[in-house]
């Protein structure tokens, strides 16, 4: 099974499962419909059900199409000057996962510490992660950008940016 076929099978399976989950669990528990509805099409769960069924049918067809028919040859990806800098698949995936985890940890600190201070801490970490090594650039940007954005939103736009325990 080629990588492309495997990917499409994965898409079909993933969305098929999601559609089934929506029909069997998410819609019955997540959409509250009144006990009496004049027209079925007016019911709050009508539209979500139509979408879930369409997803299920499309996922099924994608699975059949992928497994049954020979795939058309897709055009090659657009020439990317940075392709030669790609990490191996596993390393790349691990780095992406690490970044996602860091970003979620950052987002969880916002409630308590506000946006400004966690951003001052996060910025140098991501810049180092992405390969910036100039300490002056890292230091200045990490400090100036969140403070400048805070100043702009707070004073020019009148939007109160949360400072958490530092406020």
């Amino acid at each position, binding site marked *: 099974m080629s990588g492309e076929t495997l990917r499409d099978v994965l898409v079909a399976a993933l969305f098929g499962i999601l559609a089934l989950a929506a029909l069997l669990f998410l819609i019955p528990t997540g*959409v509250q419909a009144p006990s009496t509805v004049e027209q079925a099409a007016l019911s709050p769960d009508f539209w979500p059900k139509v979408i879930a069924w369409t997803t299920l049918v499309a996922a099924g067809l994608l699975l059949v199409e992928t497994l049954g028919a020979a795939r*058309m040859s897709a*055009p090659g990806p*657009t020439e990317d000057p940075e392709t030669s800098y790609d990490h191996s698949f596993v390393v790349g995936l691990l780095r992406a996962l690490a970044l996602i985890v860091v970003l979620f940890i950052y*987002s969880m600190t*916002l409630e308590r510490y506000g946006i400004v201070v966690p*951003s001052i801490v996060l910025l140098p970490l991501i810049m180092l992660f*992405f390969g910036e090594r100039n300490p002056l650039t890292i230091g200045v940007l990490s400090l100036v950008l969140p403070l400048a954005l805070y100043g702009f939103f707070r004073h020019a736009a009148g939007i109160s940016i949360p400072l958490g325990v530092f406020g």
Partner: protein
Amino acid sequence: MDVILQALSLFLSVENILVIGIGVLIGTIIGAIPGMTTPMGVALALPFTFSMAPVTGILLLLGVYKGGLYGGSLSAILIKTPGTPAAACTVLDGYPLAQKGEARRALDIALYSSCIADFISNLALILFAGFLAAFALSFGPPEFFTLIVFSLTIIAGVSGPSLLKGIISACLGLMLATVGLDLIYGTPRFLFDEWQLMGGLSFIPVLIGLFALPEIIHRATRRPMPPGARRQNLGKGASLADLKRVLRSVFRGSIFGVILGAIPGIGGAPAAFLSYSEARRNSKNPENFGKGEIEGVAAAEAGNNGVAGATMIPLLALGIPGDVITAVILGAFMIHGLRPGPILFEQNQVMIYALFMGIMLSSLYLLGIGKLAIRFFSHLATVPNRILYPIVFVLCVFGAYAVNNTLFDVQVMLCMGVVGYMMLRLEVPVAPFLIAFVLGPLLEDNFRQSILIGDGDSTIFVRGPITIIFWCLTLMSLFVLIRARITAARTGRQSVLTSGG
């Protein structure tokens, strides 16, 4: 003639001429900052108009409005961070152009298209306000519904090699658009005890998450480029030949913008998508759409900016605000003791003509200030990714928060970033998701309102010439796209109509 001379003397003051420029400048800057929306900019400028003369105050707001509509394209093209749903359409081709080192060309085309569309829209406002207002009033929910169905056929065009993946992507967008309180019964849908979802998922955090974050996360899979390596060149600006090439799409998009802008409640996003769709359908190079086609940028911007003058039509002619921005402008009129509508045309003709003069001047300002903005903002495209992406991320966090002043939207943005990254890795096209998410609420609301009006009778969807025309256009569009796909499958070659996205 007397009225025009009086209007000219009312309009020709240093304050009026300055204030339009200031408005356009503020709007452009606000539009370019993710999270700062045009309605926000207009609302922020409103208190400053209290002490101004009515014409001066309203011209300031109009300047902010027009600048804001254009400004969204700057961040959309340069950092793939659309400030508005309509600017999300500009991302589809604008960002790939910037990635190819043609940022200046994309920005120039966006500016020229915006200015031309804005000018056409202003002309339509001045010349056809009465006629367009009457036409707009003939649009009820069934007409809206068929119009949105027709707009959704673009999904088939931007799905790339796999139509089924495009449909799945669109379904995901439609499903997420249903989150929130049900509009008819007021019952919760997919809230799961999270009260912050009652109003649904906000557009801006979802769009920022879907476009900007996957790019940043994907960057993590690459090694750092050596120090000194430039991210990309700015390239040359657009040539006259480029402008000539896109002119048809710009005019077409402007007309869509004018017609849809005149209909209350539609806004710039459907106009941008419809214009983009039609440009792709009529283009000699449809296979380039989604990969960096200037015609795509031009069409999206023309559709988006074509609504600018036209949204004033229902406001001035009927006193009906078509969207949040015109509602704020209506507020400005009322603060100055004026009530837009037919009576305003009769009793305050001089003021109306003075406003028209200012509106026309705003198109010129847009060109000049847009050029300056391009010069200033385009340098973003040369900042190395290792510095730019962390900056963009923090900008996205501030922006996502600022839309509704809630940290919940930051979480939404991050979650959508992960969804977008998975879609990127699984090669599920994002464009259908985006179109469905933006148009989904309009589609469902108008469908259900039609059912209510028709008391369950589905013939309401073919109740008049407008609905029938849209159904015919939808069928024709689907027929052409499906035939192209079948032909492509038979010959084993990609059709130009199936390779976009």
